[in-house]
């Protein structure tokens, strides 16, 4: 064995190789985490982006007075007797006329042509007619939702082969859909309804939207903010500024640290047993959901608020006390305003956590099928007492449905949820960057 400083001996080589291996393990771990993140996000985006585009059929729908208003006086009582079943043939006629006008040949019967239109579309037309009775008499141009299978065909979810086995559609219908698209009668447009419409039944994935869920989540966030922020800040001020160091405060501290790590589903059981079964609050209401999430967010807010209070240097307190302020005045007039950016950041991050939380909400019944937009206040149910659903629960709900079109909706809802979270976290980061002070 040569003993030279210029060439490494076997042992050094081994040690250097171990060094390189060790470093590679670290890089590999980072790589795994990054790859997981990229795959996760791509799978969400590729599967979910379709929910934001929807196939519509634009046709002139005849609105004959003889069918829609037998009285001829635009009497609401008479007009509202015509149900969506009465409207559906009119939509079909409109589409059949448009096909004839465009000169498209098809072997399908009129009834089968009508299947290209979503069952939800009749309700859209009916609502518009009832809102504007003067439309009756002339054909009116409507943008109607296409059936979910047709929409799936343009998005690649339904193929000719799968349609042949499907009793809800057929290759001939898809063929006609292709021709309609070429003729410009069928278009794919941005799907605003996805963000505003309420949920739809199992048979109508094309009409399902997030309106109720977004509203419900918004109400819950208001409840969480109103409850968790003041209570959390008050508790932190006491623990950080006033509490004597004794057994009792020690118990509270351990308790808070533990509450932050309690599984979220346990909070759901708490909400079910205490808020619903014992206190008799309304099931599925944003109020109960908000209270449960507030209890869950409280430890997060307390921990970050205490950190923010701790970061304010004692000299500020001493100066205030020195010019005659009371302890309380020094805290509320000087320490709290200086800690505000940190508290705000922690609160936003806590809210973002609460916004994505699902499990506890399942237990307090927010998974129910809700089509009515919840009211913020109604005399029957009180403040935030209307049944509602929430964004993450709506996602869960859609994953439990049979039609694969709902998976696309669920992933689309995830994109929406992630955008909200991104906005909240960006605001938190910007606040921190802008107002953070180093003492």
């Amino acid at each position: 064995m040569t003993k030279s400083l210029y060439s490494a001996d076997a042992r050094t080589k081994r040690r250097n190789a171990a060094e390189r291996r060790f470093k590679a393990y670290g890089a590999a771990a980072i790589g795994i985490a990054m790859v997981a993140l990229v795959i996760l996000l791509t799978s969400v985006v590729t599967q979910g982006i379709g929910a934001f585009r929807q196939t519509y059929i634009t046709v002139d729908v005849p609105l004959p007075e003889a069918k829609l208003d037998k009285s001829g006086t635009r009497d609401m009582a008479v007009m509202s007797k015509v149900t969506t079943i009465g409207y559906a043939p009119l939509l079909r006629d409109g589409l059949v006329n448009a096909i004839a006008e465009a000169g498209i040949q098809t072997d399908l019967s009129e009834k089968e042509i009508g299947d290209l239109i979503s069952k939800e579309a009749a309700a859209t037309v009916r609502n518009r007619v009832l809102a504007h009775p003067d439309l009756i008499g002339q054909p009116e141009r409507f943008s109607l939702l296409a059936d979910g299978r047709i929409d799936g065909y343009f998005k690649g979810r339904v193929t000719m082969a799968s349609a042949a086995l499907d009793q809800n559609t057929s290759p001939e219908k898809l063929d006609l859909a292709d021709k309609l698209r070429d003729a410009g009668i069928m278009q794919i447009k941005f799907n605003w309804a996805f963000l505003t419409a309420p949920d739809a039944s199992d048979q109508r994935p094309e009409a399902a939207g997030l309106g109720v869920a977004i509203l419900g989540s918004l109400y819950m966030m208001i409840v969480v903010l109103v409850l968790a922020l003041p209570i959390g800040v008050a508790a932190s001020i006491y623990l950080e500024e006033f509490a004597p160091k004794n057994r009792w405060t020690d118990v509270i501290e351990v308790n808070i640290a533990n509450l932050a790590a309690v599984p979220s589903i346990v909070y759901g059981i708490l909400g079910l047993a205490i808020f619903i079964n014992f206190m008799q609050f309304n099931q599925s209401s944003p109020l109960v959901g908000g209270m449960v999430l507030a209890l869950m967010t409280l430890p997060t807010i307390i921990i970050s608020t205490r950190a923010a209070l701790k970061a304010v240097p004692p000299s500020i307190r001493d100066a205030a006390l020195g010019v005659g302020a009371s302890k309380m005045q020094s805290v509320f007039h000087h320490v709290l305003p200086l800690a505000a950016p940190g508290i705000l950041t922690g609160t936003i991050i806590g809210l973002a956590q609460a916004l994505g939380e699902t499990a506890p909400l399942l237990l307090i019944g927010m998974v129910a099928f809700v089509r009515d937009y919840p009211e913020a206040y109604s005399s029957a149910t009180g403040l935030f007492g209307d049944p509602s659903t929430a964004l993450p629960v709506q996602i869960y709900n859609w994953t439990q449905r049979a039609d694969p079109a709902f998976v696309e909706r669920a992933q689309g809802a995830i994109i929406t949820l992630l955008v909200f979270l991104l906005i909240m976290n960006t605001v938190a980061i910007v606040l921190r960057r802008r107002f953070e002070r180093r003492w």
Partner: protein
Amino acid sequence: MSLTLPLLVIIVLAIVGSFLARRRALSVSGGDIRHLASLPKQHGLNAILSTVVPPLLAIIAWLMAARIMEYRGAAPLWVPLAIMALAVAGVVLSVVKVSNTFRARTASETWIKGLLIGASTIAILTTVGIVFSMLFETISFFRQYPWTEFFFSTNWSPNFRGNSDLGIIPLLWGTLYISFIALAFAVPTGLFAAIYLSEYAGPRIRGIVKPAIEILAGIPTIVYGLFALTTVGPFLRDYFAQPMGFGDSASSVMTAGLVMGIMLIPFVSSLSDDIINAVPQSMRDGSLGLGATKSETIRQVVVPAALPGIVGAVLLAASRAIGETMIVVLGAGAAARISLNPFEAMTTVTVKIVSQLTGDTDFASPETLVAFALGLTLFVITLGLNVLALYIVRRYREQYE
């Protein structure tokens, strides 16, 4: 009589009281506030607090009492009257007390301090609420179902017509198996990621990787759940389980464990990062100075020194994994079974809590009540892990501070 009127009365009295207290403070001082021990606005604040706080507490106490006594309908007349009387007493007392020597600032701060203490006890109340909400129902569950069966039976088959087998063992098995796979994936990955970031990576890489890992931490669990359901599950089934003959279920222990592992990476890595950074630099310098390579320093000095903290972090991650719900609901399946095959669908405690408490529930039947017993078991296990982990982490921090 509803409680709306008393609430309105309280608000009006508070405003009036504050106004009167200021006026009176000015008049007793003869217009020169230097004679007052406290400023007029502090007398006002004291009047507001003494008017508002006691009746509000009384309202809450009444609402609770009515619930506990199962009193239905509107409150009897004496309740709102008593509440309003409290408010009036508050106003009168606080306004009468105003004088040159009365220290209103101290008095109002006592009220505020009381409120602060009240807020800090909410955390305790939450824990008490959690325990009691599950304890009573668990007791009534064990009145209907033998506890030996619950803890030692290896069969879980609830039947809403009665005669169910409700043994927790298969659920615990699924929970522990999935958590084990998740930790086996997340702990090495998270730990190595933390080591690389704190010991090797330059500021540029750290600037990119750290926020990316934080994104991973901010993603809600329902998103991971759907990822398991639509992407990871089918992938594992088509490329591993079926070709290797392990079965053809997309939801499996492996699916849920792997996705949960991804979820735990940021958790483990950020905790370990803090812990590794807390190891004093002098220990590293000493080791490097003796000629050890960087990896030898990390393996033989930094990691052993940080070991208690890392163990604490792993315990916290385990508690997370055991309590995780949405990933297993969507990724693990619903069949209660004890098997070693990781590509088979199994179920967990949390999945069964969800399935027994959603839909139609009858709070008298053991099939529903079992969820509370499961919840309490889960709470006790995670509480044990958390307390142990927090104790270890705290002890460790003190060691180097």
